[in-house]
């Protein structure tokens, strides 16, 4: 469970996050939407402790994020761009993360095997394509079966088969009551996964609603149509409430 209370962060004069409060529960698949530069990545990085907020608190399962780092053992993070030390093999990267997280002894290797990475585990990272590196990132995020998944553009650069595999895996984890926070510009990829939508614009939270509620108010079925309709109607101020 992630609780964000009045989070504010600015870079220079520009406010990347402006007084954001959100509460995300287990079992939810929250899709983080918004135009480029709306603060999605800053929000994700704040949750991970990579960006240090000016004001506000973030609590993960009741634990404040500020100084403590142990809470991160419950998070699986898949970054937007995965770059790894050039001369390491896939196997070495995976072993390294395993050795860092000694608190886990049971590994979820579904994705690792599903993507066929175990067959190319001796390949060096510098020889891998962008998509294969993305697969490594995904496998690492899911390796420790964490309670919370944070996925930044997970399907970008993946081929359709791998993309479906990843989506199935996300759905499977959701059914186990995990919390998934996902950003994607490919709305069709979120179809059937997202249960809630968080919409950010210029660092402000425009709305946080369940997909069913949005479908009901817009009268549309498909997610991209729902979002298009919401954006056309200029995001009414009343939609701040959950």
């Amino acid at each position, binding site marked *: 469970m992630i609780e964000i209370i009045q989070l504010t962060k600015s870079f220079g004069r520009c406010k990347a996050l402006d007084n954001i409060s959100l509460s995300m529960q287990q079992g939810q698949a929250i899709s983080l939407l918004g135009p480029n530069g709306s603060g999605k990545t800053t929000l994700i990085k704040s949750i991970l402790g990579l960006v240090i907020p000016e004001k506000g608190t973030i609590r993960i399962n009741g634990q404040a994020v500020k100084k403590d780092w142990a809470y991160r053992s419950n998070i699986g993070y898949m970054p937007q761009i995965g770059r790894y030390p050039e*001369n390491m093999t896939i196997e070495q990267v995976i072993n390294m993360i395993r050795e860092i997280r000694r608190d886990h002894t049971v590994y979820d290797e579904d994705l690792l095997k599903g993507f066929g990475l175990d067959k190319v585990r001796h390949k060096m990272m510098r020889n891998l394509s962008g998509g294969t590196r993305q697969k490594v990132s995904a496998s690492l995020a899911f390796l420790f079966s964490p309670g919370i998944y944070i996925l930044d553009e997970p399907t970008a650069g993946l081929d359709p088969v791998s993309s479906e595999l990843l989506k199935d895996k996300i759905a499977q984890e959701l059914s186990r009551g995990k919390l998934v926070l996902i950003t994607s510009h490919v709305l069709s990829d979120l179809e059937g996964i997202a249960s809630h939508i968080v919409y950010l614009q210029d660092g402000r939270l425009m709305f946080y609603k369940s997909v069913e509620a949005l479908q009901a108010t817009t009268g549309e079925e498909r997610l991209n149509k729902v979002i298009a309709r919401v954006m056309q109607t200029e995001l009414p101020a009343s939609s701040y409430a959950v």
Partner: protein
Amino acid sequence: MKTIIKYVLLDLLKNKIILVYTLILAVLAVSVLNLDGNPSKGLLSLLNITLLFVPIITILFATIYFFNSIEFTELLLSQPINRKSVLLAEYTGVAVSLSAAYAAGIGIPLLLLVSGTASLILVISGLLLTLIFSSLALLIFVLCRDKTRGIGAAIITALFFSLLFDGLLIGLIYSFGEYPIEKMVLGAITLNPIDLARVLMLLQLDVAVLMGYSGALFKKFLGSAAGSIFAVSCLLCWMIVPLLLSVRVFNRKNL
């Protein structure tokens, strides 16, 4: 922390630039030592090579490596591990591999051709310079926002210490030559790790003519032994202070 050091080392030992650096140092060492019949002269040439190449190559390589692994650092930081360990582990990995390259490239030929205290001191000076300039590279990495600025800052830092600083010092000595400025010059030398390394080596070689103004001052005021200890402690400060500063800045940095 040990885990990260281990894997950074595994990555860097396969790095081609490190291998080439080792080879070039070794070729230079062997050729310089064979060229001169007098081992003391050979050591001096090697000292000059060390003072010229080690700072700039170390700081450039380390800065580029730190900036290239920024996404990887982010991934590490999303794991349950604190920032200080990640940063210091990366520093250790880079500093150890560059030191190993220097020790192998210069140290082994010296051991085979001119073993002795003076050679040992030369290797120690080179290693200290490697540690210092990796540490300065780390500071540049945490202070600069992007790679281009970082590399620029690295080049300026290396050029400042290897060229500009001595020019300023000479200017100072010329302008205030009439006054008793020996202690001030002595103090100024501690502000440049490259000068400190030079003095450390020259005190050992005991070549009064070649020592120059700074070396002679060190000898006059501190004597060989005290001078050496003083120089080494200053060099260690040059390594530790930037490291501590980097950790402080990094703990508050937005990635």
